[in-house]
Every structure is written in structure tokens, then in C-alpha cells.
């Protein structure tokens, strides 16, 4: 038997890479094995922090020379399949951000989930989730990416459905997984096309063969391959029209939402499309950009009038992911990547902040009659939770994209890219840019509305109780993230995207660095922001942020464009009808055919048996009937058996004679 040697060109960093991957898995294993241990969550957090340090170390050590090695996996026929592990600057950065945010979420959850009975299961799943996400990052092999991609789906399913006793959580988890799977169809098709064209899944090999433009590789097919992979990304990153799962995913514990929205799941899609963007032709890029723009706008619009704090954040995520996709679509992958990183910090912060608030309200009202997530039950929390408030403010501003925040830098670079694309290529790119800016207005409106509803104004809940900051852990985590959302961290000149060290260091498709759009973009976006914020503040003054009457515009926003209903109507209902129909086919047609065959066999046998015994009699009685009618013969004929036999035999003889003649 030929044996497969698993590992070749192995080096020191490789071990650390594996250790980093193994730590979350270790957390998973421990939590499964000792499912009653109350101390384990802390150990899990520690493991994740250790993993973060390793990631940091890897980032450092691979900054100048990327880490890459091959594992022989297996071979089918004469084709061998290898796993290529690759850590370059992009994945190194992502590794760090993912492990870091995951570690923070772990730590945050130690307190947040303290009273939950299934705590260990929760931490186990967090470990799995992190592991799967890291898996996507460390390889350049599409097949392996897809494997971890699916694992991410699984862990999100399990985490969203963490409180499985709740019907809504169960439904949401299912929805998330299935919608993701729709995207996965695209991914699989993309895989097939890639193998068909390149006989390799390794992105590096694919890129190389693309550059050397091998004969027989059809450009269109490659572009389709890219688009198919983009379909996969659309599922994971909640792009239109597959964004419906994300708002429902709020059914999971809030820290999980932080993880999903910031660092793991939705990031995976964007990361993938950034990685494979070289496959996309200009037409395909336009598709990507338009999808992103539509998503950005739809998400922002849907966030406008939500009352559930987590829903607002969820829709804002959709919108921001739309921006990232715009970035890829307009050819500014680096900007998209930049936004991915900054977004990870402030969105994690926002969710954890929201978690802290919810936790506090929940503490104050232990009975379930107060919806702890409804912003209408909040208000005036600025004084009650000052630390949370200040952190939350930073995150919010970053989300809007106010200067001095990380969000300003990254969003600016995307808008810049879109302006550039619009000005050079025109056409639909103008729509992309337009929607981008329009969404900025909407974003600033809903963020300001959220801030106003949560922290300012008056408490709208009737029986007022003392709400206070909960735990030190929460504060530390929030403040850490807040630091990460400040512009200086990402660029020494917080006004200039160009001076961002990230953008300068990563090797991705660059946006054009021209002066005019640069300034224009900044000014335009600032105007947009002020418009949105102004309207919101005006609304706050007049106390009309929670609209009393539901006009069509508001209803459209509240119901997320009625996407769920539309899908229910155009897909799910017909599909269910189809399955019912097929079931009927199965029972009524296929099985019935078999039954019919059985029955007809039975009937035939009866008929033959009957004919065998009675044909003559039957024939006789028939002729008697006829004859009796015509009155030629009287009824004198009755069944006489043995003679009927003889008659039948002779008749058979005559029939055979006629047959043979």
C-alpha cells in the first residue's frame, strides 16, 4: 500500500501555528469532557488569550516573509490533494484580530453567562467557532477553506440555537444554516470550476496559472468561478438577497452576536472575496459592487426604525458588510480589508456594550416581563452606566465614520474607491457611489437615534429601578475595544487614509491615490453625516424617534423590506407545495405504479384463473344473453363444467392454429 507522508517543508513557525489552532480546540475538548466544571470558562479565556499572543507572534514573524508549507493530504487516481498552509500579512492580521476579539468575547462571557446552566457547552462552542474561523484564515486552499467555512456554519448554528428551548432560537439557527447553505451551493460550484480549470484548489497556484495565462483556461469560466465563490461569500457575509438570516441570528447570546458580527462568521465571507478577487473580471466586479451597494443601503434603511437594540446593530452590520463588498467591487480590496479590521473592533464593542446594557437591565428586572433588548425600555443610561456609555459612544462614532475614529479611515477609503471607480468607469458605479453616500446619511441617523434612545432622554419604562454598571470585566473589555476603535491606532494621521500603516503594508489591489476625490469624498461624507445626525437630533428634540404611527416607509424599515415575507411567498411556500406534491407523486404515482403492477398481476391472475375456468361459461352466458335478446334460442344453457373445459381446450387449439397460420 502506498503511504502518504503528511508533512513536508515544516518549520518552527508551523508548530506555533498548529498550537494556535489547537488552543481553541483544546478549550472545546475540555469543556466537553468536564461539562460541569465552573472554572473552565476562565481557563478557556486564558487559552484564547494565549492563542492571541501566538497570533501576534506569528504576525510579527511572518511580517516580512510569509509562512507557507504543504501537507500531502491524499490522492484520487493520479491527482493528489495537498493542504497549503499560508500565513501572510493579511491572514496574520486577521488571525490576530480574530483571536483577540474571540479572547475578549470569551472573557466577557465569563461574567455574562455565569448563571447559565449550559455554560460549558457555550464555551465549548465558542472554542469550535474560533477554531473554524482560524482554519479559514490559515490556508490558501479553497477546499480547506470550504471545510472550515462549513464548520463556521455549524458552530454558528449551534450558538444561535444555544437556547434551543426557545422556539424562535431554534428557528433562527435553522434559518441561518440553511441560508448559508444556499451560498455554499455557489461555493461548491466554484470549487468544481476551479478544479476543472486549474486542477488545483490552491489560490497561489491558481493565481500563478492565471498570470501565466495557460491555454485552455477560459476567462469567462474563471469569472463565473469567482462569482460563484462570491455567492458563497454572500451567504456568510449576509449580502442581498441572502441577508435575512443575520437579524434573526440575534436569538443567540449577545456575546456570540459580537463574535459573529465582528470577527468570525460574516468576516469570513468578506475575507474570502478579498482573497479571490483576482478571479473576477471587470463585469463580475461590477456585480459585486452593486450587490454591496444594495446591501449597504438596504441594511442601513432597515436599521432606521428598529426598536430592538441588537436588531439595529445587526442591520448596521449588514450595511457595513455591504460597504466592504463595495470596496472589493470597486477594486479597493485593501480598503475593504481595512474596514473589515476596524469594523471588527467597533462592532464587537457595540455588541458587547449592548450586552452589558442588556445584562444590566436584566439584572434590574429579573422577571421576564421587561424586554431587556427593547430600546423603548431604556433611556437616560448615560448617568447609570458611564463607562459603558463612553465606550459605546466611541464605537458609535466609529460606525458613523466621524474623524479621529478608525471607522472614518476605513469607510473613507472605501468611499474614495467608489468615487474613483465612478469617475473612471462611470455607469453603474455612480449608483454604487451614490448608494454608498446615501447609506452614510442613514447610518448617522440610526446611530444617533440609537444613542439618543439608549443613553439620553428619559427612562420610558414605568417602574424605574436602579440600573448600574455590572462588572469590571465588562468595563475592561469595552475599554480595550474602544482603544482599538480610535483612529490613531490605525494611522498616525487620523485624517489621512494614505498614512494608514495597514493600507501601506498589505499587498492587495489598491485604490487610486488621486487628490481630488480624496478631499471631495471627505467633505461629502462629512456633509452626509451631519445631515443624518441632524435629522436624528431633531427627532430626539421632538421625541419622535419612536414613531407612533407606522407609515409605509417605517414599516418597510421595521420589517426589513418584507424580505422574509417575500421569500415565504415566492420560495418557501411553493417549495413546500412542491415537496408535498412529490410526496403525493411518491405515494400516488410511483408506489401506485408498483401497486398497480401488483394489483394488475392479481387481477390478471384472477382474470386468467377465471377465464381458465369460466371463459366458456362466460362466453356462453354472453351469447345466451345476446341470443336470448334476439329470441332465437331459449335459455337452455347452464354452466356444465367438464364440457366447458373441453370446449375451452378445443377453442384453444383452434386459436393456436389460427395464431400459427
Amino acid at each position, binding site marked *: *500500500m502506498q503511504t502518504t507522508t503528511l508533512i513536508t517543508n515544516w518549520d518552527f513557525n508551523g508548530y506555533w501555528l498548529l498550537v494556535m489552532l489547537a488552543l481553541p480546540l483544546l478549550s472545546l475538548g475540555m469543556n466537553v469532557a468536564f461539562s460541569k466544571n465552573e472554572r473552565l470558562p476562565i481557563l478557556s479565556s486564558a487559552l484564547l488569550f494565549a492563542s492571541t499572543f501566538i497570533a501576534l507572534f506569528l504576525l510579527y514573524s511572518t511580517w516580512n516573509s510569509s509562512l507557507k508549507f504543504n501537507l500531502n493530504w*491524499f490522492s484520487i487516481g493520479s491527482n493528489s490533494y495537498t493542504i497549503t498552509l499560508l500565513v501572510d500579512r493579511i491572514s496574520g492580521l486577521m488571525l490576530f484580530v480574530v483571536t483577540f476579539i474571540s479572547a475578549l468575547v470569551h472573557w466577557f462571557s465569563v461574567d455574562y453567562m455565569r448563571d447559565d446552566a449550559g455554560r460549558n457547552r457555550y464555551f465549548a462552542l465558542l472554542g469550535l467557532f474560533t477554531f473554524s474561523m482560524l482554519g479559514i484564515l490559515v490556508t490558501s486552499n479553497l477546499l480547506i477553506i470550504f*471545510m472550515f467555512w462549513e464548520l463556521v456554519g455549524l458552530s454558528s448554528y449551534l450558538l444561535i440555537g444555544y437556547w434551543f428551548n426557545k422556539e424562535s432560537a431554534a428557528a433562527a439557527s435553522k434559518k441561518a444554516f*440553511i441560508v448559508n447553505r444556499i451560498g455554499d451551493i455557489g461555493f461548491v460550484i466554484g470549487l468544481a470550476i476551479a478544479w476543472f480549470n486549474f486542477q488545483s484548489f490552491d489560490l497561489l497556484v491558481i493565481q500563478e496559472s492565471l498570470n501565466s495565462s495557460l491555454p485552455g483556461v477560459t476567462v469567462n469560466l474563471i469569472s463565473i468561478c469567482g462569482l460563484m465563490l462570491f455567492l458563497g461569500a454572500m451567504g456568510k457575509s449576509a449580502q442581498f438577497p441572502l441577508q435575512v438570516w443575520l437579524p434573526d441570528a440575534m436569538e443567540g447570546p449577545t456575546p456570540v452576536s459580537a463574535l459573529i458580527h465582528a470577527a468570525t462568521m460574516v468576516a469570513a465571507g468578506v475575507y474570502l472575496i478579498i482573497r479571490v478577487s483576482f478571479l473576477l473580471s471587470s463585469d463580475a466586479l461590477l456585480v459585486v459592487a452593486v450587490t454591496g451597494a444594495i446591501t449597504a443601503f438596504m441594511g442601513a434603511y432597515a436599521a432606521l426604525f428598529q426598536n430592538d437594540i441588537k436588531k439595529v446593530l445587526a442591520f448596521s452590520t449588514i450595511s457595513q458588510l455591504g460597504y466592504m463588498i463595495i470596496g472589493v467591487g470597486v477594486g479597493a480590496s485593501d480598503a475593504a480589508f481595512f474596514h473589515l479590521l476596524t469594523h471588527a473592533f467597533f462592532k464587537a464593542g457595540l455588541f458587547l456594550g449592548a450586552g452589558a446594557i442588556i445584562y444590566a437591565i436584566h439584572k434590574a428586572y429579573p422577571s421576564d416581563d421587561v424586554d431587556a433588548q427593547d430600546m423603548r425600555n431604556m433611556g437616560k443610561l448615560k448617568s447609570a452606566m458611564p463607562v459603558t456609555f463612553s465606550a459605546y459612544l466611541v464605537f458609535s462614532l466609529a460606525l458613523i465614520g466621524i474623524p479621529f475614529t478608525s471607522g472614518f479611515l476605513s469607510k473613507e477609503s472605501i468611499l474614495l474607491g467608489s468615487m474613483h471607480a465612478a469617475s473612471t468607469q462611470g455607469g453603474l458605479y455612480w449608483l454604487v457611489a451614490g448608494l454608498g453616500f446615501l447609506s452614510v446619511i442613514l447610518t448617522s441617523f440610526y446611530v444617533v437615534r440609537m444613542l439618543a434612545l439608549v443613553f439620553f432622554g428619559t427612562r420610558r419604562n414605568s417602574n424605574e429601578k436602579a440600573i448600574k454598571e455590572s462588572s469590571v470585566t465588562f468595563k475592561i473589555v469595552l475599554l480595550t475595544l474602544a482603544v482599538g476603535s480610535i483612529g490613531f491606532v490605525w494611522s498616525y494621521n487620523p485624517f489621512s487614509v494614505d498614512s494608514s500603516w495597514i493600507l501601506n503594508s498589505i499587498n492587495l489591489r489598491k485604490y487610486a491615490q488621486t487628490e481630488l476625490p480624496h478631499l471631495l469624498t471627505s467633505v461629502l461624507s462629512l456633509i452626509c453625516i451631519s445631515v443624518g445626525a441632524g435629522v436624528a437630533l431633531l427627532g430626539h428634540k421632538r421625541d419622535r424617534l419612536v414613531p407612533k404611527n407606522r407609515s409605509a416607509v417605517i414599516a418597510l424599515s421595521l420589517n426589513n423590506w418584507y424580505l422574509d415575507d417575500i421569500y415565504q411567498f415566492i420560495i418557501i411556500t411553493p417549495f413546500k407545495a412542491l415537496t408535498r406534491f*412529490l410526496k403525493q407523486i411518491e405515494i400516488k404515482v*410511483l408506489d401506485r405504479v408498483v401497486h398497480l403492477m401488483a394489483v394488475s398481476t392479481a387481477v390478471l391472475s384472477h382474470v386468467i384463473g377465471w377465464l381458465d375456468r369460466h371463459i366458456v361459461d362466460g362466453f356462453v352466458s354472453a351469447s345466451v344473453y345476446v341470443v336470448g335478446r334476439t329470441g332465437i334460442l331459449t335459455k337452455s344453457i347452464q354452466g356444465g363444467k367438464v364440457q366447458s373445459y373441453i370446449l375451452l381446450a378445443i377453442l384453444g387449439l383452434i386459436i393456436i392454429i389460427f395464431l400459427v397460420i
Partner: protein
Amino acid sequence: MNGALLSILIFLPILASAIVAFSPLSQKLTKYITLLVAGVQLLIAMGLYLNFSQTAGEYGMTSFSYVEKVKWFEFSLANYGKISADYFVGIDGLGLSMVLLSVLVMVIATISSWNITDRYKGYFALFLLLNGAIIGCFVALDFLLFYLFFEFMLLPMYFLIGLWGGPRREYASIKFFLYTLFGSILILIVLIALNISTIDPVKTAIEVDLIETADQYSEKVETQVHKMLNFGKISSTMHVHTFNLIYMTDPANLIPGSILDTEGTRMLLGLPLRLVAFLLIFIGFAIKIPVVPFHTWLPDAHVEAPTPISVILAGVLLKVGAYGLIRAGIFIFPDGLIHFSWWLGLLGVISIIYGAMNALASNDLKKLIAYSSVSHMGFVLLGISALSSEGFGGAIYQMVSHGVIAAGLFLIAGVLSDRTHDRLIENYSGLAQKMPKYTVMVVIFFFASMGLPGFSGFIAEIFVLIGSFISPLLPGWMMIVASIVLVLSAAYYLWTIQRMFYGPFYYRLSDDRTIFTDLTKREHLMFWPLVVIALLLGIFPHFLFDLINESVSQGIDLLSAQGLVNLKSIIK
């Protein structure tokens, strides 16, 4: 010593069956004997695996190991020549993987049969008989021997379903029996035709005095025999007709002017006879696989069969069909495969989607799993018809993988019906609260079955999909349509989880909450090996691929070359 291993593998259970049937053993002793037999088989099979070498290539297309060849019978039949059959067993990678799968499933099924006390003697005797017959199918290299074991599986199965099954067991068992018998009759028709058309070059050489003993046989003699045969120099009384599956694959062994001769011009219903024969044999095995629309026996059989039998049925028996299709169908009629690949692929895709849709509409847990089997076995057909190494390898991988996973799935259904005797999904809710460990197992197997990476099903399905896309024969849309099953399988499994395990607990039929006990130690014992194997194969595919690679790559090369040649000569 190696020589007799396969025979031991076959006849040990048959012998044990006789012992169990005719001696007054207690239930406990009987089941331990059964387990012992399965265990010994597992050990032997592991030994076979560890010592397996693919270098020996003396038996044609793919190399076979552990070959035993003993003359079974040989008699002359008037002017027709001689008919000879051998007790000829041996395994290549494909056969070995199937043997490994079946002994594993047998062990699990034995453990699952632990609580059978009703007429236990008959049960275990039939069970062991079935065991032997299945192994026999996988190792037989003589078509008659294969057919013997193939048919021989029917009867124990019929009684096992009919006597120990659910309420509609009699209907299901007779349906199963008639359906599969119908299939095997079609196979028999082709089997007879093949026997008429094929000669054994070695024995014919002896017959025409080219050589004296089989040892003297060499390639030179072979060429000479073929040449003589081709020029009609061998009179028909000298022909030694054979059932040898390997000789049948070589068109040079076909008697010129015989029914299935590749040079023949015989047409039936507008098709060359060889293609008709392929269709017959295909339908015969398609019933066993089962392929839509020949599948309707499966849901009934599964729903009514006792759990261990469902496990064997899904885990191994369906694979016998697929294995037969490969070994006796496409290796012998590569021209048929190439000619009909579009239709085969289409049937595969239809099975995949149709099975999944029906699973989605099922409200009976076992029925759902049964339909998912239809869907998964559709991948096997799609992979085979692709005629690419990825597709073919994936198909074989799927056979093993589905064997492991479907076994687990039916055990899962069995756990529940053991406790409540009720499998209707809508009667349950929130089982996760009462039976958390069971729920974990359900989640594991459901996700494994829907092709989650890390489990064997993923590798199999992804490569079948890729293989069918890059196939030279199948259009790309088939793969795209087939990949819709990713969503469908997720939908029916997750919906089931949502309905049965999530949400608040209730059970519609009874207020007795004590019946919902979590998994026992014995049940853990049957689940975990399957989980481990599924994971192992999912993460380290080379364990299996290294085994079957030889069959796959040589098979594909020869099939496509030979098939095209044959096809050209039969369709002029």
C-alpha cells in the same frame, strides 16, 4: 495461510449460523457467539487491510489479493462446449473497503440486536447467514458465485423483516423480496448471456491442447487462444464458458458471433444487444441501490425492519447493489456506461433531489432517513456515471461513508423507537432536555449525513460533485442541480432537529416521562465507533483513497479506453 482468509470470512458466520440454529443455546450465549463471529471477522478484515498490497497485478484490470481459486464445477453441455464455474474469491481495494465496511456494520448491528429475545435462535441464525452472504458478495470474482450470494441475501432478509419487523412487516418484506427478485432476474438474464458469450482462455487453451496445465499459461498462449478464437479455429464444443468476472471484462474473451460480442451486429428494440444487456443489468442493480424510480421498496422495508436490520440494509445491502453495478455492470460493459452516462447521471441527479424532497415531506423519522439514503445513493450513481477519477473515487467513498453514517442514522431512529415504539416526528418536541446525550448523537449524525466537513460524507459528496462537473460525459448543469441537495439536506435534518429536539418538551402520545431515558452504555458502544470512523475518514481520506486508488485510476483509464472502442464497434 493468506489463501483461506476470505473463505473463513464467508463461512465462519454460515457455520455459526448452523450451530446457532441446531443447538440449544441460551439467548445470551447465542448473541455472544454472534458478536464473537463478527469480532473475529473484524479482526481478519483488519489483518487483510494491514497486509493488503496492490502490487500483484496478475488478474487483469485491477489487481486482486488473497485470491482463492478452486474448481467448482465443469461439465460439457452437448455441442455448446463446457460450462465451468470456479469458487473464485479475491479482493481489490474496492472489495476490501466494502468488506471492511460490512464487518464493521455487522459488529454494530450485532450490538444493536442485543435485546432480541423473541425467537432469538432464528433471528441470530438468519443474521449470521446474511452476514456470510454479504461478505460473499463482496469477495466473489465469479459471477455465478456472486449471484448465489446476491440471491442468498434475500431470504434471510425477507424473514428478518417479515418476522421481527414493525406492524406492516409482511407487506414490506414481500414487497422487498419481489422487488429485488425482479431485479435479480434481470441480472440473471444478462448473466446467462454473458456465460454464453465468454470463454475461459486458460481452460480453453487446455481444451485445445495448447497447454497441459494451467501453470503453463502465459501471455503468449493467451494471444494464441484469442487469435484462434477470433478466426473461428476453436470449434464450439471446445469452448469453455466461464463465469469469471475478470475474463468477462476482456472483449478478447468473447466468442465471435456470440450474443454479447463487441463485433456483433445484433439489435434489439433498435439498440445493440450489448447496450440492452447493460440496461438490464443496470436496472437490476439500480433496484438494489436504489435509484429513483425503482426505490419504492426501500422506505417500506426500512420503516418496518427492526433496527439492526435497517442498519444492515442501509449500511451494507444498498452497497451491494452499487458494488455489483461497478463490478458486474460497468467493468463488463464500459460501452454501456459511456453510451448511457447522460441518462445514468440524470437518474443520479433525480435520485439525489427527489430523495431529499421526499425526506423533507416525511413525517416518520425512519422514512426520512430512508429517503435520505435514496438521496445519498444517488451520489454514487452520479459519481459512477461521471467516468472521472474524482467522480468514481467519490462514488466509492460515498458507498463507505454512507454505510457508516446511515448505519448510525438508523440506530438513532432505533433508540427512539425502542423507547416509545413511535417514530412520528410531530409527536415529539424538546427531546434535547430529556435526552441530551442522544441529542448530541443525533446532531453529530445528522450533520455528518448532510455532508459536514470533517465527516466522511463531505469528502465523498464534494468529490462526486466535482467529478461530475469535470466529467467528459456529463453536462455541467447536472452537478449544479445536484448541489441543491446541500440546502435540501440541511433543510430536512435541521427541520427535524427543530421539531423533535428543540423547543419545550412534550410527547403527544403518553404522559409517562420516565420512558425517555438517555443513551445506555451499550448504545454508546454502537454509536462511537461509527462516529470515530466517520471522522477518521473525513479528516484523513487517504486511509480509504490509498486503498481504492488503484481500482479507480486503472479502472477509469481502461474503462474509458475500452468503452470507447467497444462502443465504436457496436454502433457502426
